[in-house]
């Protein structure tokens, strides 16, 4: 598997990814709606423009076969009334909803009594959806549903609680038609437009601390520290309720990518307003109540969370009666629980994958390599001359390139991640998945020049070091910290240290916790240090976080990148946005802003005696989504 995915087979891989992408884009019902958005440029000329209206003819296409989608193009002419500006027509790819996967219920007697999932403990052990970040959603997904879901096989946007959506010409107003007759659990009435407004408000009200908090505030036009009344007033303006089952969301910013934010991927779970009115903030912590196919039974902190599967649900009736998440921090104990059939799915270290397989268990990979792994050269604060440490060798581009070329990614993957679904090359914060949203985001040059720029070549690395003035290498800190998305990172770091030593560098390994690095980087006080990270990636969200002085992580900042972020924030047109981001990507690629390692799919071990199949997309942080669709083996 590994061999097939790395090295020479890169072409094949890219090709197959393109195929997958094409599937997502081209798949029958998944075909995107291509909407034209008028983008206003301030040129005071009166013009006549022609508008291309692209309509698709719906065609039934089988999953594996990619066919061209026939389109009709009609040209309409219109005279613009606004004479003080030029209007350019841009294409926005708005994925139309994939119908949600509706699964017929198995006979009650054929269902499995219980499916237990062993996870390494949760970063959050709480029933609150809006006080935890997306890493704490593993145990919310069975209960909470979203306007826009994610298809577990294609990764496309599904019509979960919204049946249709469309974007207005200004690029800001999104209309959602809501599914009808969806009851809330515990008798809180039916799901309506009020709940959508409430759910969006929950994420910006004073007690909230969700993932992407700053994006949410931008979307809602609020600021941190706004009180309940202010945020409520904003929510009423932002979410216009047309009727009980239709809302128009007036975003505070132009966001052609909004489906990402308003759905499962960036986590806008639907919570009941009636429930909030009844129990208030405190009561929300008592349990999780949603519209999903499972209902909350109990949470024993530090131990487990238990759910009952519904006997009736519009979307899916699970093939089991109960679902349990068990927090087992120790990896050996998790393995033992799987072997003794105490649990049916377990997160197991990749290093022992083969042995677990040989004992009759199977590993399921996420459909996509959703975890991106890279290392940061700390100290590259080029917009802050006063905080830069001039003696930091990592300020030199040649040094960064030398370190990037010193690492034998293929060998590390082969040795430490046997059997895992891995993709090399990897471009920091630019993934193939993002190409779905922004076609043309990834520069084909990157792949073509990979070997020359980043490929493993210790000799070239030594020469680069010598050219940079470090023929004898230098000392630096290699920070090791455990990472729930990639527990092997501790070994990878040590293996990289060996590679660095091979070109004459002198790494000092140190266990430095992520929180320590956060506090250091906040003070711009981390230099000559290499630290690893692994996690879910989404370009537009991460570029600002990682590569802007205004961001919060600030791994590499540069005046050029700052101006690009500014440009991005005022750029309306989607193709222009793609261009700006790609230019940032070019800069980072050419300047070795980070040390890319690989993209890898999350995986989970299953017991095939009980679990027939489990398909999960693998790019949603927290990873193990769509457990309700597990197919079980009748006992």
């Amino acid at each position, binding site marked *: 598997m590994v061999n097939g995915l790395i090295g020479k087979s890169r072409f094949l891989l890219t090709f197959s990814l393109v195929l997958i992408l094409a599937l997502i884009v081209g798949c029958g019902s998944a075909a995107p709606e291509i909407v034209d958005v008028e983008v206003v440029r301030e040129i005071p000329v009166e013009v006549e423009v022609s508008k291309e209206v692209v309509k698709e003819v719906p065609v039934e296409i089988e999953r594996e076969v990619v066919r061209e989608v026939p389109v009709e193009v009609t040209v309409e002419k219109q005279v613009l009334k606004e004479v003080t500006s030029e209007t350019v027509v841009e294409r926005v790819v708005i994925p139309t909803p994939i119908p949600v996967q509706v699964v017929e219920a198995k006979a009650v007697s054929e269902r499995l009594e219980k499916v237990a999932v062993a996870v390494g*403990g949760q970063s*959050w*052990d*709480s029933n*609150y959806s809006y*006080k*935890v*970040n997306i890493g704490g959603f593993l145990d919310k997904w069975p209960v909470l549903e979203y306007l826009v879901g994610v298809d577990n096989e294609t990764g496309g946007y599904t019509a979960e609680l919204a049946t249709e959506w469309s974007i207005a010409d200004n690029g800001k107003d999104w209309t959602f038609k809501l599914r009808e007759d969806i009851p809330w659990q515990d008798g809180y009435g039916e799901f309506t437009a009020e709940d959508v407004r409430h759910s969006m408000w929950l994420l910006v009200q004073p007690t909230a*601390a*969700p*993932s*992407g*908090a*700053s*994006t949410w505030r931008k979307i809602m036009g609020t600021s*941190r*520290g706004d009180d309940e009344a202010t945020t409520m007033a904003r929510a009423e303006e932002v979410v216009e309720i047309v009727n009980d089952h239709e809302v128009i969301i007036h975003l505070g910013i132009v966001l052609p990518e909004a489906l990402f934010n308003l759905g499962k991927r960036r986590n806008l779970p639907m919570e009941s307003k009636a429930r909030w009115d009844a129990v208030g*903030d*405190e009561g929300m*912590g008592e349990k999780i109540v949603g519209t999903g196919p499972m209902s909350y039974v109990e949470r*024993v*902190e*530090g*131990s*487990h969370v238990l759910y009952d599967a519904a006997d009736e649900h519009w979307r899916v009736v699970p093939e089991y009666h109960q679902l349990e998440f*068990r*927090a*087992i*921090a*120790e990896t*050996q*104990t*998790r393995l*033992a*629980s799987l*072997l*003794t059939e*105490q649990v049916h799915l377990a997160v197991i270290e990749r290093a022992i994958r083969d042995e677990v397989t040989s004992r009759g268990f199977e590993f399921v990979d996420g459909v996509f390599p959703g975890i991106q792994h890279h290392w940061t050269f700390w100290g590259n604060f080029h917009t802050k001359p006063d905080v830069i440490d001039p003696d930091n060798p990592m300020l030199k581009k040649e040094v960064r390139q030398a370190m990037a070329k010193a690492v034998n990614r293929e060998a590390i993957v082969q040795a430490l991640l046997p059997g895992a679904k891995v993709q090399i090359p990897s471009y920091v914060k630019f993934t193939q998945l993002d190409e779905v949203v922004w076609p043309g985001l990834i520069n084909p040059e990157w792949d073509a020049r990979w070997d020359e720029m980043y490929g493993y070549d210790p000799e070239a690395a030594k020469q680069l070091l010598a050219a940079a003035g470090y023929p004898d290498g230098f000392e630096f800190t290699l920070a090791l910290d455990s990472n729930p998305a990639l527990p092997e990172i501790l070994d990878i770091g040590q293996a990289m240290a060996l590679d660095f030593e091979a070109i004459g560098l002198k790494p000092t390994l140190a266990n430095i*916790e*992520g*929180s*320590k690095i*956060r*506090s250091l980087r*906040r003070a711009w006080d981390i230099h000559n240090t290499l630290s690893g990270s692994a996690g879910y990636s989404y370009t537009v*969200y991460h570029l600002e*976080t990682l590569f802007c002085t*205004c*961001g*919060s*992580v600030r791994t590499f900042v540069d005046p050029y990148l700052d101006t690009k972020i500014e440009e991005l924030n005022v750029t309306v047109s989607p193709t222009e946005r793609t261009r700006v981001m790609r230019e940032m990507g070019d800069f980072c690629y050419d300047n070795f802003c980070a040390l890319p390692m690989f993209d890898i799919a999350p995986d989970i071990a299953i017991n095939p005696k009980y679990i027939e199949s489990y398909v999960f997309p693998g790019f949603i942080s927290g990873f193990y989504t769509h457990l309700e669709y597990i197919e079980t083996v009748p006992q």
Partner: protein
Amino acid sequence: MQRYIIVRLFHALLALFAMSIIVFSLARISGNPMDVLLPEDATVQDFEIMTERWGLDEPLHIQYLVYVGNVLRGDFGTSIKWPGRSTRDLILARLPATLELSALALVVAAMLALPLGVLVAVKKDTGIDYAGKVVALLGQAAPSFWVGIVLIWIFAVTLEWLPAAGRQGLSSLILPAFALGWFQVAAVMRLTRSSMLEVLDSEYVKLARIKGIPNWKVIWKHCLRNAAIAPLTYFGFILGGFLTGSVVIETVFAWPGVGLLAIDALRARDFQVVQSVVLFFGVIYIASNLMVDILYAYLDPRIRYTN
């Protein structure tokens, strides 16, 4: 006697007070919980606002006074990692798990250590003496997480007698209790052995032997009864050992007790919970030692006077 108890109580309070200062300052030095709590894209402003909201921007001594004031009113603070949960409720919810584990571990330790201690004392300097010591020491000679994992592999995976992890019924209690208890066997056995040796050497045992009472009866009835007092006074230490050991053992066996809570809280820099757990462990430890001391003072008048 009353005066003695009052003095001891005063000392205990003083110790608790000093301990709270130490733990409080250490926990604060160890980092800001907002670095763990806030999402990755939180801005510096977010960080500052949240830090202020939790009162973490105040000078340390002010924070401490606020904390002590709250504790004296019975408010141990709100958890940072477990949103909306009071640390007192968190600890109380986890307490039964740790207590039942410690109780059974105590039984295991006593059942192993007392007979072993007697045996090795009687068979002093023979092969049995060494063998007994080695058995007792084995629990201490390997890291307890390792002992735990080995027990899981033998009794859960290979023999399939007991569940591997979790807290589900009595059967799941056996392995962690054994792993926890075994660690203390060596210490208790040593105590038993040396007090047994002393007792075996005493006049009344010699007298009992001269009177023709069977050897086993002398040993198991007369000697053990007297020799067991020493290990029993060690009870406080053993309990302290269990609380410390529970941190590792509860992690290995996914046992949702106070030790696991402490680790989770510490990783998240949830000071509120960390300092409350340590304070709580301290209270248990000091209280149990106080009780032992007072009992002792009742039994042995000399102690009263020297203090």
